[in-house]
């Protein structure tokens, strides 16, 4: 192999390989995650979640209430981050990143519901969504970029009623 083809492999082949692996593994992981989310949502669907002050159709609580919360950090893969870079030039909605945040929120919600169930509660009211910047994107200095990840924080009050 001459020098030119080595350079070509290094600058084109290697990134393509990493993108390919990222896309392939990322795609499978995403599908698995979505399936597991759907299963657990089915399992926990009897826990009612609302962002109102009281559980809707609220009947008197037996006095059991507690703060419950859920957290999830889900990362995007290299390929999708790169695609988003392109999207950022063209503009418009990034469906992959929209889905990513959706997955993180659903995961966080499920964790909150699971904690409510552990406490023997069947409703969650005053639910709030929050976010955090762990990837460091808002504080990254100069041209140093943070990591692409969706952070979802959710909290609420669990009731037994």
């Amino acid at each position: 192999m001459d020098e030119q083809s080595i350079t070509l492999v290094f600058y084109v082949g290697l990134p393509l390989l990493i993108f390919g692996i990222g896309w392939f593994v990322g795609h499978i992981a995403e599908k698995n995650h979505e399936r597991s989310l759907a299963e657990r949502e089915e399992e926990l669907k009897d826990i009612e979640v609302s962002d109102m002050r009281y559980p809707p159709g609220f009947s008197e609580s037996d006095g059991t209430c507690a703060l419950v919360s859920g957290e999830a950090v889900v990362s995007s893969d290299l390929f999708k981050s790169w695609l988003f870079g392109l999207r950022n030039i063209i503009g418009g909605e990034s469906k992959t990143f929209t889905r990513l945040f959706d997955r993180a929120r659903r995961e966080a919600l499920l964790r909150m519901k699971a904690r409510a169930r552990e406490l023997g509660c069947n409703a969650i009211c005053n639910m709030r969504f929050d976010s955090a910047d762990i990837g460091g994107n808002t504080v990254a200095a100069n041209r140093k970029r943070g990591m692409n990840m969706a952070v979802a924080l959710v909290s609420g009050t669990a009731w037994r009623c």
Partner: protein
Amino acid sequence: MTIVNTDTIPGKSIVQVKGLVQGNTVRAKNIGRDIAAGLKNMVGGELKGYTELLTESRREAISRMIAQAEALGANAVVNVRFSTSAITSGASEMMAYGTAVVAE
């Protein structure tokens, strides 16, 4: 200690307001977890280390808030809110605040 993020507690009435209580914490994961998260960022998926970081931060912030409320002689904290701020990649500040009350 009853902690809720609503402004009332079911089945109880607030008899005395003790004031605002808060707790905060800044946490980071060790460099090994940061490197693992960086690698995971290539293929995508949940970054368990950072999820753990948030759970721990929340627990710590809440427990500090509770300690303040106990010092004031309160038995409940209502209207709890969380706030986060960014520091750098791989670290987070979590703050919990609420109103310490005596409820009966």
